[in-house]
């Protein structure tokens, strides 16, 4: 096992309740809102912040164990750290910034290794530039080369792409993906950008108020969040509460009641009959009924409503449908439930999708994911 592990707990000044591990060659992306404690977790691993309780280590080496009063300084932990603002040494040129971090006393050897590292991050020819004469992307590369210079066992990246423009960011993403193949190190990437986490992370940990709420692959995180809280942090649409009616193991479905409507969801026996659950469905799994030509699929969780918003996003149309079926309130009007649907532009055009029309939609039952209720 050549794995990084960290278990952190404290109440103040910044609350922490984090459990994470990261294997060789793996990129673990810590995602969550700004000020959610992601950077603090990274600082605890590097030895720049000491949590009230916790264990941090790599392989057999324990770097921090508050129970045994072990707390190695950053110098004794084999971490490479890329800071958010890069924190380059302004008094040294690019080569000096990297060479000073190379261990050993032979200065010629250190310089040669620094040159190799700069070449590896595509900075050949810029060795004698001072940081203030480098662009944002170049600074990030120097910071990366410096972090690798001490031959770290673990690479920690704190928002490494936040200070560069969109084009540079995409190029740096590609470079990082290429670099990691040759490194075989556990890498922890802190980002508030979910798309970046999905692109670069093998696994994603959702961090909120210092707690790792869920750690899974991007596909699982997006389709099977463990709670409505995680789903909201992921900015998922179509999160609603319902009551479990029955499990039908033979048909592979669980029936739930959502404000007077009966929905069939993927079988989820973990939620007992009668409890309130939260459920979520990806907008791409909300299917529009053809207006002229009804099909068999329309019997699957059919809903009726009126399109209240219709926006083009890339190759898709995002539509918001206010439902007109289901429970009525005291005045007899429909309770305002809104379902978001994403459909390809061509399908939207063929079916005449536009704001104001009344339509029917189906929710694909196997894509309805149930989560333990919070209410």
């Amino acid at each position: 096992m050549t794995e990084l592990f960290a278990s952190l707990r404290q109440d103040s000044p910044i609350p922490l309740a984090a459990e994470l591990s990261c294997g060789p060659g793996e990129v673990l992306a810590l995602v969550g809102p700004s000020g959610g404690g992601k950077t603090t977790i990274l600082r605890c691993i590097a030895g720049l912040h000491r949590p009230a309780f916790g264990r941090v280590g790599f392989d057999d080496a324990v770097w921090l164990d508050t129970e045994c009063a072990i707390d190695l300084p950053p110098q004794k932990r084999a971490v490479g750290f890329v800071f958010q603002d890069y924190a380059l040494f302004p008094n040294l040129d690019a080569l000096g910034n990297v060479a000073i971090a190379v261990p050993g006393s032979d200065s010629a050897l250190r310089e040669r290794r620094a040159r190799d590292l700069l070449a590896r991050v595509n900075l050949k020819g810029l060795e004698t530039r001072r940081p203030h004469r480098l662009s944002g992307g170049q600074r990030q590369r120097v910071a990366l080369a410096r972090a690798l210079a001490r031959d770290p066992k673990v690479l920690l990246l704190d928002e490494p792409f936040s200070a560069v423009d969109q084009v540079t960011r995409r190029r740096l993403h590609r470079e990082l993906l290429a670099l990691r193949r040759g490194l075989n190190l556990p890498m922890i990437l802190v980002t508030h950008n979910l798309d970046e986490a999905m692109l670069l992370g093998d696994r994603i940990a959702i961090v909120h108020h210092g707690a790792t709420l869920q750690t899974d692959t991007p596909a699982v995180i997006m389709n099977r969040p463990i709670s409505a809280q995680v789903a909201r942090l992921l900015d998922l649409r179509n999160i609603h509460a319902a009551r479990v009616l029955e499990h039908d193991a033979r048909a592979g479905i669980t029936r739930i009641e959502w404000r007077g409507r009966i929905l069939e969801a993927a079988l989820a026996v973990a939620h007992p009959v009668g409890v309130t659950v939260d459920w979520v469905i990806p907008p791409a799994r909300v299917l529009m009924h053809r207006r002229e030509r009804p099909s068999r699929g329309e019997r699957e969780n059919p809903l009726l409503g009126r399109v209240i918003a219709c926006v083009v996003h890339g190759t898709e149309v995002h539509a918001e449908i206010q439902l007109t079926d289901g429970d009525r309130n005291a005045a007899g009007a429909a309770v305002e439930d809104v379902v978001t649907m994403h459909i390809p532009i061509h399908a939207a055009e063929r079916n005449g999708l536009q704001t104001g029309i009344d339509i029917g939609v189906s929710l694909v039952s196997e894509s309805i994911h149930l989560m333990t209720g919070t209410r």
Partner: protein
Amino acid sequence: MDWQALSLSLELAAWTVVILIPAAILIGRPLAWRRFRGKGWVVALIALPLVVPPTVLGFYLLSAFGGDSVIGGLYQSLVGRPLVFTFQGLLLASLLFNLPFAVQPVQRAFEAVPPSVREAAWCSGLSAWRTFWCIELPLALPGIVSAIVLTFAHTMGEFGVVLMVGGNIPGDTRTMAIAIYDRVQAFDDAAAGAMAALLLAVAFVAIGLVHWLSARVARQHD
């Protein structure tokens, strides 16, 4: 021109710089980064010589260094000479009244070193000593040079404290500023004018250097 007074002033200024600057780094660096109880009082105490009239400061130092005092008595019993009206006494007074001119620029210089740069040094495997020597000190250097220049120029020109603690003994405690006063009293305007012009030049060069250095720092941190 009183060459003896000039050489004495230069000697006093040089010794003050040599002793005070390392002390200022020792005091200014923790003041920049550490938080502790009573820090405000320490900062105020160091700044005191900026606002206390030189003769008042000189009066208290004279009392503190006198043969009847603890410091003066101890010095006399150890060295066999009194502290007041000697070069050594003058140097000690000079170290005290220059404290803000040395400590404040050094403190500002260390405050300007971003915490993340120091943390990056630790995470690059640099020991605390190497971080200080290879990163912090070069980054704080313009501030340290400012402290040297200000301390040197201020020592060259100080009058009140020097007169109170050192008196006016040729070759021992008669500095340039005292010599100018001495020459004016003797209606020797030519000598006084030459020395005044020299001190003016020193002050001008000092201020020019400090400005040039702070501009350099601003460029490096942009």
